[in-house]
């Protein structure tokens, strides 16, 4: 099977290059984010607030083009809480299916027993 597109040259970033923060203006917020990330065993979803604060700082200091934070992916659906809730729902759904199928098997077994007697 011929693969449609294997590797292609990296393309330019959408919003271009981040201007360097020569004056360390947003450094404290960056450090807060990094500490949060280290404390969350490398799960950036748990540190969305800190990341949002850092990017907002960059926008306020003219180190990043201003944009709506929702458009940058900071929406409730991409939060850690939403993911945990979604995971819980899926597990409950699976457990329900297992329980229902067990019930069905048990009922069929009982009917067959009744049929034999």
């Amino acid at each position, binding site marked *: 099977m011929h*693969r449609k*597109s*294997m*590797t*292609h040259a*990296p393309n*330019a*970033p*959408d*919003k*271009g*290059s*981040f201007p*360097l*923060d*020569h*004056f*360390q203006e947003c*450094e*404290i917020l*960056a*450090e807060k*984010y*990094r500490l949060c*990330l*280290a404390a969350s*065993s*490398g*799960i*950036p*979803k748990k540190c969305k607030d800190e*990341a949002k604060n*850092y*990017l907002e700082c960059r926008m306020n200091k003219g180190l*990043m083009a201003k*944009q709506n934070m*929702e*458009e*940058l*992916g*900071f*929406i409730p*659906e*991409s939060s850690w809480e939403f*993911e945990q809730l*979604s*995971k819980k729902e*899926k597990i409950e759904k699976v457990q329900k299916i297992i329980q229902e199928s067990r019930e069905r098997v048990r009922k069929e077994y009982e009917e067959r027993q009744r049929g034999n007697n």
Partner: protein
Amino acid sequence: MFGKKYFSNSAAGWYWSGGIFGMVFGLTYLAPVFYRMFCERTGYTGVGLKQKGYDYSKMHDPKKIHRKFELHFQGVCEPELGWSFFPLQDSVMLNAGETVLAFFRAYNDTDQPVIGISAYVVQPDEVVQYFNKIQCFCFDEQLLNPHEEVDLPLFFYLDPKLCDDPVLSEVKEITLMYTFYKAQDQTLVELLKNHPNSPLNRPPVKNPLIVDD
């Protein structure tokens, strides 16, 4: 209509073709002007033009948030550059469609301002087409003053289509490696050395995270 009057002699044919040629030539010159006028007047951005799609929240796919990838960061640089360059986090655990912020740090060990330029590779190779940078420090010249240290942020996401790719169905770990090279054109450095308002002549900036006793 186009009777004998206009095509009475062979020279007329040359005049006609020359005139038509000239008109078409002139129109192609004026086309961008008309196009711009039309676009500004009507605000029409074109049906065929693919919008850059700056709304990254659209990348979120609820069906794909549970497949996690461990993305490792690596940073290397060319020895001639004289910089230290490394990621500030070893790896992150993310899903496709999630926007992630990551940092690298670069420190200019030399006594000269140096311009570096970075490029990256992604392993496995096939993942690179799904690796989308919203904003980063790559492919752009970065100037570091002597003994200056900067944080280089990277804001990116993995396209959810990655999860649909059968070639990558078993992929759980991805490596992103940035390499910094010395830019061939260091002329900006020379200009800065001689300019009175050059950042090289500014007093050194105090890093707010370092506390002097």
